[in-house]
C-alpha cells in the first residue's frame, strides 16, 4: 500500500471540514477525489501533505506513519503536490524556478553549502534542464516566470512538483481556468507523466470528463465524509453520488 489514511478528521472550531476519511491507494493506481465545493477535498490533501495537522486520524506512506510531519519532510519521502493556483517564483527566471526545485531534490531538505558556487553543481543544472525539457519549457528558460502565458505557468507549476521525481503526486485542479485546448494538452501531459515516470497520481478535479479519462479509481467526498469509492463505472452508477454531487442528474 502506497498511501493509507485512517479516520482522517479536521475540525475548524465547530466546523468539521474532513470527517473520518479512509483512503487506500496502491502504487501505480490513479485516483481522483471529487465532490461538490466545500466537500473537504483540498483540506484532505492538505492534511496528507502536511500543510495542516489533522484533529484526529493517521496518514501512512509506504507503511510509515507521516501524520503531522512538516511538508518538506513529506516531500523528501517522495510525495509531491501541485497547487491549484500556479505557485511559482514570479520574479525569478523559469530556469531559476527549476534550479530551486532541483536543489531540494539533489541536496535534501538542508545543506550547509552557502560558500559553494551554485554554478559548480552540474547535477542541479542537469536536473533543472531535464525538468524544463520534459515540460517543453526549456526555450523560455531565460524569461521571468511571471511573463509566461497562463497555461505555461501551470506547466511550470507541475514541473516544480515533478523535479524531485516523486512517487506520488497530488494535482489540485490542474485544468482550472484553462481553455479547452489547454485542458486537452494538460490531460495528455498527465497521461504521459503516468506512463513515462510511473508516478502514482491523485487528482482533485471538478471536470467529470477529465476524471473519467485519467482515473482508475474515484473517491467521492461530501460534507467532509467519503460517500463512495470505486471504479469510474461504479461511481457513475451510484445513486448516492448522483444525489449528493450532481443533484440527481444522470452523468
Amino acid at each position: 500500500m502506497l498511501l493509507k489514511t485512517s479516520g482522517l478528521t479536521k475540525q475548524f472550531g465547530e466546523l468539521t471540514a474532513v470527517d473520518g476519511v479512509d483512503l487506500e491507494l496502491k502504487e501505480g493506481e490513479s485516483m481522483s477525489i471529487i465532490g461538490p465545493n466545500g466537500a473537504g477535498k483540498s483540506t484532505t490533501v492538505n492534511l496528507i501533505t502536511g500543510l495542516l495537522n489533522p484533529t484526529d486520524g493517521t496518514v501512512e506512506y509506504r507503511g510509515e506513519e507521516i501524520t503531522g510531519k512538516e511538508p518538506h519532510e513529506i516531500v523528501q519521502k517522495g510525495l509531491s503536490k501541485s497547487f491549484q493556483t500556479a505557485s511559482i517564483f514570479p520574479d525569478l527566471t523559469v530556469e531559476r524556478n527549476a534550479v530551486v526545485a532541483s536543489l531540494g531534490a539533489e541536496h535534501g531538505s538542508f545543506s550547509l553549502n552557502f560558500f559553494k558556487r551554485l554554478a559548480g553543481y552540474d547535477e542541479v543544472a542537469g536536473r533543472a534542464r531535464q525538468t524544463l525539457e520534459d515540460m517543453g519549457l526549456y526555450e523560455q528558460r531565460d524569461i521571468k516566470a511571471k511573463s509566461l502565458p497562463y497555461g505555461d505557468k501551470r506547466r511550470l507549476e507541475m514541473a516544480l512538483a515533478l523535479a524531485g521525481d516523486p512517487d506520488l503526486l497530488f494535482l489540485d485542479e490542474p485544468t482550472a481556468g484553462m481553455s479547452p485546448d489547454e485542458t486537452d494538452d494538460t490531460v495528455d501531459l498527465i497521461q504521459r507523466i503516468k506512463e513515462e515516470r510511473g508516478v502514482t497520481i491523485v487528482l482533485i478535479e471538478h471536470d467529470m470528463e477529465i476524471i473519467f479519462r485519467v482515473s482508475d479509481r474515484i473517491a467521492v467526498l461530501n460534507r467532509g465524509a467519503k460517500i463512495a469509492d470505486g471504479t469510474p463505472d461504479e461511481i457513475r452508477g451510484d445513486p448516492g453520488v448522483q444525489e449528493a454531487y450532481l443533484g440527481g442528474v444522470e452523468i
Partner: protein
Amino acid sequence: MSEQTETATSPENTDTAGLLGRWDELRERESFSILGAIVFVIGFPMVFTNLPLFNGYMSLVELIYVWSIFAIGFDLLLGYTGLLSFGHAVFWGGSAYAAGLFSANFYGEPLLMVLVATVTASVLALVIGLLSLRRGGIYFAILTLAFGQMMYFLALGPLGGITGGEDGFTGVAVEPLLGALSLEREFAGILGTLLHDISYVLFAGFFVLTVAVAVRIVRSPYGAIFQAIAENEQRVRFLGLNVWRYKLTAFVLSGAFAGVAGGLHTIHAQYVAVGSLYWITSGDIVIITVLGGIGSIFGPVAGSIAFLYVENIISGEIAFWLLVLGSLFVSVVWLFPAGIWGIVTGIRSTVRERLLGDDS
C-alpha cells in the same frame, strides 16, 4: 541599395553586441565584484576627500566601510530573504560591547576584537533567530524590535557596571595590528597616496572581504533559495526544503556581518555608546539599505555613503539635516523604489539599449 546599407551596418552592430556580451560575461564573474571593491577602496577616498563638493575626510571614509558591511549583511536578510528585522542594533551594539570589553580585559589586537565581535553577534543571532523566526511578517519585525530594546535596557541598567550604562563604554584599548603595526602608521610614497595608513588598510580590507563573502553567498545555492523564500515561502517548503533552517541561517549570517561591523566600529570610535543598541540604530540600517537599494551587494554601500554624508557633512552646513535625510529618503523611495543602486542599473540598461541601437 538597401542591401548595401544592411551589410554596412550589421557587422558594426554585431561588434557592439559581441563586446556587450563579453562585458556581461566579465560582470557575471565573482572576481569582477571583488575587483570592483578593490578599485573602489583605492579610488573612493581620493574623490571623496579631495573634491571640494564632497568635503569628505578619511575617518568618514572608514566609517562608511563599517556601515556598508553592516548594511550588506542586513540586505542578505531584507533584500534577498525578504525578512525585515527591526532589531539589528542588538548585533551591532552587542558585538561592539564585546569587542570593547575584550580589548579592555584581555587584548586589544584589532583582528581578535573583530573575531570576538563576530562570534558574539552570531551567537546572539542564533538565539534571537530561534525565538523570533517562528513568526512571520510584522510579528517577526516586532519580536526582533522587542529583543533589541530588552538588550538596550539591560545595558543601560542591570549591566551598567560592565557596560558603563548611560555613559557608554570608555575603556576601549586598541593595540597595534598583529601586535606590531600601529594603526596610525602612515605609508610613504605611492602606497601612502593610495592606502594612507594601516588603519585604512584594516577597514578597506574588511570591506573588500565582506563584498567577496557576500557575493559568494549570493551565488551559492543559498542565494537562489533565499530569493525563492522571499517570493513564495510555501512553494519552497513543498519543494522539500527546510525553510525554517534556511531562514535561521540567513539570520545568523546577517548577524555575523553586523558583528564584523560592530567590532570595527569599536576600533574606529575607541568607544561604545549605549545608543548603538537603541532601536534608532535598527531603524538607521533599514533606511540605509532601502535608500541604497535592496537585493544587491552595492546598493547598501551606496546607501551608507548617502546616509553618512548627510549625517556628517550636510549636518555641518544645515541645522535641520534630518529633514534633508528624510526628504532624500522619501524622494528616492517614491521615485525609484529600487533605491540609488536601482538608478545606476537603470542608467546602465538605457546606455546598453542605445549602444545596441534598439530603434524598433
